[in-house]
Each structure stands twice: as C-alpha cells, then as structure tokens.
C-alpha cells in the first residue's frame, strides 16, 4: 500500500501501539490486559507497519525472526513453570517475591507469573507475525 499519510502516521502509531502493548502486559494482573492481549496489540503495531512500509522494513524493525521470537516465548513460559520445582511445588505454581515488604505494605511484588505472562506475550506476537509476514510475502 503506497500512501504517504499512512506511512507517516504509522511511524508514530506503531511505536505507540508497542508501548501500549507492554503497558497492557504489565497491568494485566489487576486490570484488563495481560500477555495475550498485549501480544495481540503488539502484533497489530507490526502488522500496521508491514502494511504501510512493506514486510522487509517490518522484519528489519523486529530484528529477529518472528518464529524465533515465538520459540523463545515458549521457552520462557516453560522455564517460569518449571521454576516451582526448585521450591518443590506442583508444576506451574506461581512463586512470589515481595521487595521491601513491611507489615502494612506488601512492597513491590515480583513473580514467576509475570515471567510466564511475558512468555505468552512473545508467543502471541511471534506466532501472528510469522503467519502475517509469510502471507504478505508469499501470496
């Protein structure tokens, strides 16, 4: 698609979508969002970019192959799930760490749940882009 307006707008829009996708990912545990939705938003950003500027540009912007990204995501999710073995819990049991917790305040929570969700995010992003890029290029 050769439209100047779309190309210029996309340059900003794609970036905003990507930032928004990370925001959706991080807030997902308490507000609407999460890895699935975040991954979808991120994918929309790249798909938009690919439509406006061509797949080769979008591939360059992604820097690594989308299928590799999906595999990495799957690996991260698996590691997050296996992590509970160290604490002899059942597989995929969330492990939590509350930084600076006091009696009144839980502090800053970190968990393997977030790591798992990041894995989901990367899988969704990578898988969709794998298909979209391939279709754009091959058909």
């Amino acid at each position, binding site marked *: 698609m050769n439209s100047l307006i779309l190309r210029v707008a996309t340059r900003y829009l794609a970036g905003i979508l990507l930032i928004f996708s990370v925001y959706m990912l991080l807030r*997902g*545990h308490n507000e*609407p969002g999460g890895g699935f939705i975040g991954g979808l938003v991120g994918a929309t950003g790249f798909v938009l970019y690919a439509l406006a500027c061509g797949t080769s540009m979008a591939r360059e912007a992604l820097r690594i192959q989308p299928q590799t990204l999906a595999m990495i995501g799957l690996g991260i999710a698996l590691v997050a799930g296996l992590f509970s073995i160290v604490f002899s819990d059942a597989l995929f049991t969330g492990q939590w760490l509350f930084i600076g917790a006091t009696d009144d305040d839980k502090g800053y*929570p970190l968990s393997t749940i977030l790591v798992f*969700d990041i894995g989901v995010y990367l899988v969704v992003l990578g898988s969709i882009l794998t298909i979209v890029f391939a279709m754009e290029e091959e058909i």
Partner: protein
Amino acid sequence: MGQATTDGPATNGIWGWLPVLIPLAIFGWSFSFLGPISNGEVLRFSSDWVPSLGISLSFLVDGLSLTFTLLISGIGALVLLYSNTYLAGHPQYGRFSLYLVSFMLAMLGLVLSDNLISLFVFWELTTITSYLLIGFDNESAKSRRSALQALLLTGAGALALLAGLILLGVTAGTFEISVILAKGDEIRAHALYLPILILILAGAFTKSAQVPFHFWLPNAMAAPTPVSAFLHSATMVKAGVYLMARMHPAFSGTEVWMWTLTIFGATTAVFASFLALRQNDLKQALAYTTLMALGTLTMFLGSDTGYAITAFITFLIVHSLYKAALFLIVGCIDHETGTRRADILGGLGRAMPITAAAAALSAMSMAGFPPFLGFIGKELKYAGAIAVTSEPFFVAGAALLANSLMLAVAGVVAFKPFWRTTGEPLPKTPHEAPWPMLAGPVILAALGAVLGIAPGLIQNTLITPTVDAMLGAPPTEAKELKLWAGVNIPLFLSIATFVLGLALYAVHPTLRNILARLDDMTPSFDRGWDRILDGLKALAGWQTRLIQSGVLRRYMFIIFATFVAVIGATLYLRTDLPTSFEIEPLAAKQWAVIILMIAGTLVTVATRSRITAIASLGVVGITVALVFIMYGAPDVAITQLLVETLIVVLVAVAMLRLPFLDRRGESDHRPLDALLAIGVGTVTTITMLLVLEQPLDLRLTEYFEATSWPEAFGRNIVNVILVDFRALDTFGEIAVVVIAALSAYALLRTTAKEAGK
C-alpha cells in the same frame, strides 16, 4: 544372505561381548528358582502399575514359566555369542544386539507376567522387536516385506487378543492370571466363554503361525540366521503356544477347545511337514519343520490328560534344543560355504567335522532316534496321542505322518550336506566355523543326548512342575520320562515311524518334485495376502479421494454438515426442545448493536464484492465485542476486538490476491450453502437455549472470586486464571499457537517454492 561379512574389523569389540552377559546372568539367576519350583512352590512378585484399572506388574514363576525362562535366556546367550562372530564387523551390530536383547527381555516379561494387561504389553513388545529383527537387513525389499507381513498379521491377531483378554478380565473380575486360572469352571460355564476363546485363540494362532496364518513364518526367514534360530525355535513363535498353555487350566476340557486345537494343530503339523520336504533351501525347510512342531504342540494342548501334557512340555524342550542347534548349524554352513541349497551341498563332513557331529546329534534327536531326548519325546507323543480319548486314531495318525516326514527332513538338512559326495562346486571352500559359532550347536546338541540318557535331570525340576501347573496337583499327573518303556503301542508306532521315514528319505528327490508341482498348483496364501493388502490400499485410496477433494469449500461444507447432523440428531432424539424462553427487555443501545450485527451479516451474505464482504464481516465481529463490553467482560472484549482486526487484515491479504474463479458451467452452490448456514444457526441457537435452561453452577466462579486476590495476588480474575490457576493449560495452548504458526509458515513456504518463486 549378505549379512555375513568378513571385510572390515573382525570383531564388534566390547559391545559384541557385553550383550552376551545379560542373558547369561538371567540364565544363572533362573537356576536359583529350580529348587523351590521342584518342591512344588509357586513364586509371585507384584507391584502396582495402574492400580485404578487393576493393572499391576506382577510376575509368576511356576514350572511352565521357568521352563520358558531357561530356554529363552539360555538359547539367547548362545545366539548372541554366535551372532557376534556371524555378524562380525557388521556396521549395525550395536543396533542388532540391542534389538535382540530387547526382544529377549520382552519375551521373558511375557512368559513371567501374572497380569493379563502386562502380558499383552510384553506380547506387543515382542511383535515390535521381532519386526525390527526380521527387517534388520532393511535395504532388501524382501526383508521389509516379510517384516511388515509378520507385523501386520501378528499385530492383527494381537488386537483380537487384547479384546479377548479384556473380556476375560471383566468376566473373571480380575486381571491377575493366577486368580483367573483358579476360576476355570466359572469361566467355562460363562456365556462369554466362546467369544473369549475365539479372540484369544486368534491371537495365539497368528503368533504361533497355525494354518491358515502360517505363511508369515517361512517369509520371516529373511532375517539373519541367528535371529531365526532365536525367534523361530524357542521364543517368539512359541509365545502363542505359551499363551494357550498358560490359559489351559481356565479353558481346556470343553468340546470346542479340544476340537479347535486338535484340528488346527494336526492340520498345521501334517501340512507343514509336506511343505518342509518340498523346500530346497535348508533354512526354509527348517522353517516348515518349526510349523510342524507348533502344530504338534497345539494339538497336544487340546487334550488334558497327563500323557498329552507331559508330551507337550517334553517335546517343547526337545524341539527348542534341536531346532535352535540346527538353525545355527545352517548358519554355519551358509557362513562357510556361501550357500544353503540342499541340492548342491555335499561332502562337508570332512571339512567341518565338529559342525557335522553337532548336526548329526541334533538331527537324531529331531528324527527321534534313541537314546536322544527326541526319542522320549516321540514315545510320549504317541502315548499322549493314544490317550486322547475322543479321536486317538486321528491324532496318532497325524503324529505318525508328521514324525516320519520329520525324520526325512532331518536327513535332508543335517545328514546329506555333510556325508554325501557331490560334484557341484561351492561358492566358497568350506572350512570349520570359529568356536563362538560352534559353541551353540555343540552345547544344544549335547544337551539333547545327555537329557535323553538321563531324563531324571529335568523330570522333577521342569517337567513335573509344568504339568502340575497346567493340570493341578497333587496328585501329580506327570508321566515319567523313560528311554525304555517296555514293549507297547508307542514302541510299535516308533518303529513304523523309522521305516516310513527312511522310505520317505530314500525317495525324497522325487517326492520334492511332486510336492513342488502340487504346491505351485494350489492357490498360495502368500499371494492371497498380497491381494488383501492391495485391496486395502485401493480402498484407502478410494475413500481418501472421496473425502479429501482438495476443495476448501467442500471441506467446510462437510464439517458444518456433520455438525448439524450430529448435534441436530442428538437434540432431536435425546432432549425435549425448549418450549418457552424469556427475553429480558432490551435497552436502546442493545437494540442498536443487534441491528448492526444483523445488517453486517446480511451485507456479507448478499454482496458480490470480496472487500465489502470482509469489511462487513469485521463489523459483525466488532458488534460481538460490544456485546462482551455490555455484559462486563472487558478482557474478552479487547481480545475479540484485536483478533477481529487481525483477521480482517489477514483475510484481506489472502482474499484480495486470490484469482477470481471462473464459475461458468458450475452449478450455483449458494442456495445449498444458505440452507446449511440456516441449519448451523438453528442448531446452535437451540443448544444455547437448552444450556441456559440449566441452572448455572457458580462454584468455580465463587472459588476464583474468593481466592484470586488472597492467594494469587491478582484482581483481574480472567488473567489470574490464565497465568496462575490454569497456567499448565495456557502453556499447552501457547504451544499449540506456536505449532500452528510454524505449520502455516511451512505450508506457505512450500507452496511458494512449488510455484517457482
């Protein structure tokens, strides 16, 4: 056979020797059971496997299983020792010994199992490992065909067996064999006795190659000779015989059991003996004599007299000893001369004296000359045959004919190649085989002689415990093994056998030609099998072409039509259609969404422009997202919205580049599609209404609401379920997503490559 290679390194190193130690250790260990077993004890070992299904890994050591264990491990050790030289320097020797040892362990598991299900698992393991062994020479099409034939035939039998074993287990209320065997009367009187019997015998007859399932066994001779010696003497083919013997206490004593086993066994024995004499290839001749032995064993299992069962177990031991020895000897001949053809081999006695001696001993045992164990076995066979109360003449006649032919074949295989002078040149100058290849034949042949002279060695340790295990004790019904049992009918029958056998041997070249002509005239089971397979392939091709047309629209039609038919029929037959349903009064914004949804649908259906159809389909998707928002599911709504957007992009990318199809000359499919669409919509709506009539079970919802924050530290319940409560499910789902993406990628790349891009 091309496996025997003398090129390259002459040994297989430590991996050639190490596998020999495994069966040797088991053989030695089994000896420790001889004491308790000869005292009449029965040992059981058990540990749970799948306790919820009543499946356990339990093992039973009694006379029958111990006899098999000793034969399997003993012959296994000798065969592995032999193979290490026979296949010296073979590039895939490691694979070979792995298969062979795996097979042996599976076989041991089979004969020691005390649970129907674990017995079946080991049974199938022997099927698979023997497939690998028969097809070991995988570059030869003949090997591959034979291996596949054995696999399919015994595998099909095994399916019947599985059904039979499950029926038996359900009927008896337990899967433990030792418990089932004690309930023999109950099982024989049960209404399901006949189906169980037929199914189990189907498994046993295919495995033990009874006519008409016999043809895979001679073909399986495509395997390297040590494999034939192992699989087709003491082990694999005897698995079926073992099963029948194991089930003997539960099944025997009925008319149908007796007649089925007697007729199948006798037919196999006589039929195979004639065909054995027809063969020119020594190994093929031995293969058919194995069939004869299996037939004889089956025939004796039909009876439940002490004589018949004593004859059964004695002949089982005799046959394993001489048949393994003879197979190994034929391997030696093949290895040292380069041929196995009976009509050109001759004069090997001078060049291979030890082989010749071992062959002579084995053959005499096979032919049933005194003082070998084979003689005792044959005398017992006749005694057992006469003791078969219903049809002594039939059984004795079959045994007499089979034994005489056996004597003639023994002469052809083990006497003629060594002692006749011949002018035919051999491919290689014969010389004596190396000692590891002689150890097996010599030890096995010597055992046949030693046990013949001193049958007391196995009388109390193996024979009596086995007979007791099968017929019950005390008092024992086992008969004594005696070289000289006095002047009686069996002795006369023996003499008749010698006369008839020697006469047959004298005329065997003529007889071979006549038999060959007869055999060629009769329809061949082997070719019949090929025809069945061809028919099966044609059927598969036909139904594939019918169902998988390659037209996407037709696939979709079939899928949705099946949905309508299956769900619709179930709704019609199983439920009362919803009679009344309430609809809440709708607000204006809800009406707006519904109208938008319907409008989008109508435009999608009516338009002839692809881009309009895609866009209006997107409208429908977005209105669905709006519905989610109205009913308070923001997560689902967002996901729906995003997925809808991406789908529109994807479909647009794909659809807009498709060529417009030329529809001239093709009937309009739209009316039919419309009908189907209405059907799917109706069925779905009715299903939804029925679901809504059920009271909503809120237990899970309440649980998640209550625990999401205190236990999982998250307020967004949907997300907490996804990444915490049901993280394992989510992991499975994202794995599927990745696989789907990679498959789509691979498909797209392949079509692109085929298009020449």
